[in-house]
């Protein structure tokens, strides 16, 4: 990959790399830092990485590993056990984006591997086989993480919706603990 | 001019090599010996060896003092199973080399089938070489030390007394 190729890659895939990091940490500052590091590493290794599919796979793999490493190195890791995931927080307004925000926060609270699996599956639309190769884990483990995490998120989302439907006075209750600790404590 | 250069070269060569004796004539005894010691050390080897001598270690310190100026050391020592393997006449090729005017005899003794000779080479009256021949039935030793100035230097590892004194006293009168 030439230097010009590298520049093109940065412009073309900055969104993908940033997205993975953002959804992993739910923190834009950390996401940018990690994303920059990934591209700098690509720059160092550009002669060994071919543009195209090889490069995309490389970027996904490196970004995910960098996210996991950064999370593990951070002094404050506010991971929550799957069973202890907080309820989706309900704030004042009505729209589903709040549910989505809650889901994002929930995902950013998962342990590192399930978190990475969910981000790659639903954020990057990757097959479990490809996720397994990226994270160097067996496919059945990928499925296991997917199933557990999805089930829990589904359960909490369903509870949230139920509460929405049964609120007698039309207002939305403020309830639950916002899953704010996922990444805000990271330096 | 060319003849002059050849003459000068021969003088230099003669001066350099005069103290060194060709010991090839003794090679024939090496194969017949039951035990042998052969040492050929030119000036560079002597210097190299001297640099490894430990000045604080007994014997090595004594030798280190003695090798100053030594330009070569050539030794042949053979022991034979029986006394008939070599004869004193076999030493002639060695002794023929010390007939020049610069060689003077310090000691010559022949008795009961044993022969001991010590010769010094002098240049401008100064000792700068030595030949020792010690032959007896069943044993032959020839030692040639080039650059040697004092006999007692060679006895660094042995007792030595009057022989050293006598070597200093027997310098021939200058022509």
């Amino acid at each position, binding site marked *: 990959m030439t230097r010009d190729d590298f520049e093109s890659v940065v412009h073309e895939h900055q969104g993908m790399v940033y*997205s993975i990091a953002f*959804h992993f940490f739910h923190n834009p500052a950390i996401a940018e830092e990690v994303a920059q590091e990934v591209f700098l590493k690509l720059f160092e290794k550009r002669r060994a990485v071919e543009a195209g599919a090889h490069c995309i796979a490389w970027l996904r793999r490196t970004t995910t590993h960098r996210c996991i490493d950064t999370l593990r190195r951070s002094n404050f890791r506010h991971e929550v056990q799957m069973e202890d995931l907080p309820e989706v927080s309900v704030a004042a307004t009505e729209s589903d984006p709040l549910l*989505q925000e809650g*889901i994002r926060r929930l995902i950013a609270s998962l342990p590192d591997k399930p978190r990475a699996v969910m981000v790659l599956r639903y954020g990057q639309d990757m097959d479990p086989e490809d996720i397994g190769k990226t994270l160097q884990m067996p496919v059945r483990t990928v499925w296991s993480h997917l199933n557990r995490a999805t089930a829990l998120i589904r359960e909490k989302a369903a509870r949230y919706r139920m509460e929405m439907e049964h609120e007698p006075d039309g207002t939305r209750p403020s309830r639950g603990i916002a899953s704010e600790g996922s990444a805000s404590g990271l330096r | 001019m060319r003849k002059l250069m050849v003459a000068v070269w021969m003088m230099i060569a003669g001066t350099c090599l005069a103290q060194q004796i060709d010991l090839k004539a003794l090679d024939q005894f090496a194969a017949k010996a039951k035990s042998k010691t052969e040492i050929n050390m030119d000036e560079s080897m002597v210097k190299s060896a001297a640099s490894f001598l430990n000045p604080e270690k007994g014997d090595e310190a004594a030798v280190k003092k003695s090798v100053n100026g030594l330009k070569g050391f050539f*030794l042949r020592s053979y022991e034979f199973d029986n006394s008939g393997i070599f004869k004193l006449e076999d030493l002639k090729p060695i002794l023929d080399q010390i007939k020049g005017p610069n060689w003077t005899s310090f000691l010559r*003794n022949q008795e009961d089938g044993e022969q001991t000779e010590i010769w010094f080479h002098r240049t401008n009256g100064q000792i700068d070489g030595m030949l020792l021949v010690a032959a007896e039935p069943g044993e032959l030793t020839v030692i040639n030390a080039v650059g040697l100035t004092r006999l007692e230097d060679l006895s660094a*590892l042995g007792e*030595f007394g009057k022989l050293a004194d006598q070597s200093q006293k027997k310098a021939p009168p200058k022509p």
Partner: protein
Amino acid sequence: MERDLREALRRREAPPGFAERVLARTQQPETRGHSWVWLAAAALVLLMIGGIGVVQEQRRQAEGERAKQELMVAFRITGSKLRDVQERLATIQQRALQRSEQ
């Protein structure tokens, strides 16, 4: 559920100026990768030179020790022979003395 998940985790745009910031950082350590290679090569050359030097020194040491041992042997034999000569001289002198007294 899957729709919600995909919607929640949909691709985000990188912040404005992200690409420029990345490219700016790549301008500085242009030879970063190269310097590693050069450093490694230089280290290897130094190691080789050092290694050759060490081997040569070891050889010199071994040869010097060998020469030293030869010299020590030479001096021991010579010292021994000179002692023999001395003893023989003493014997000769003794005999000459006895003859003169007779």
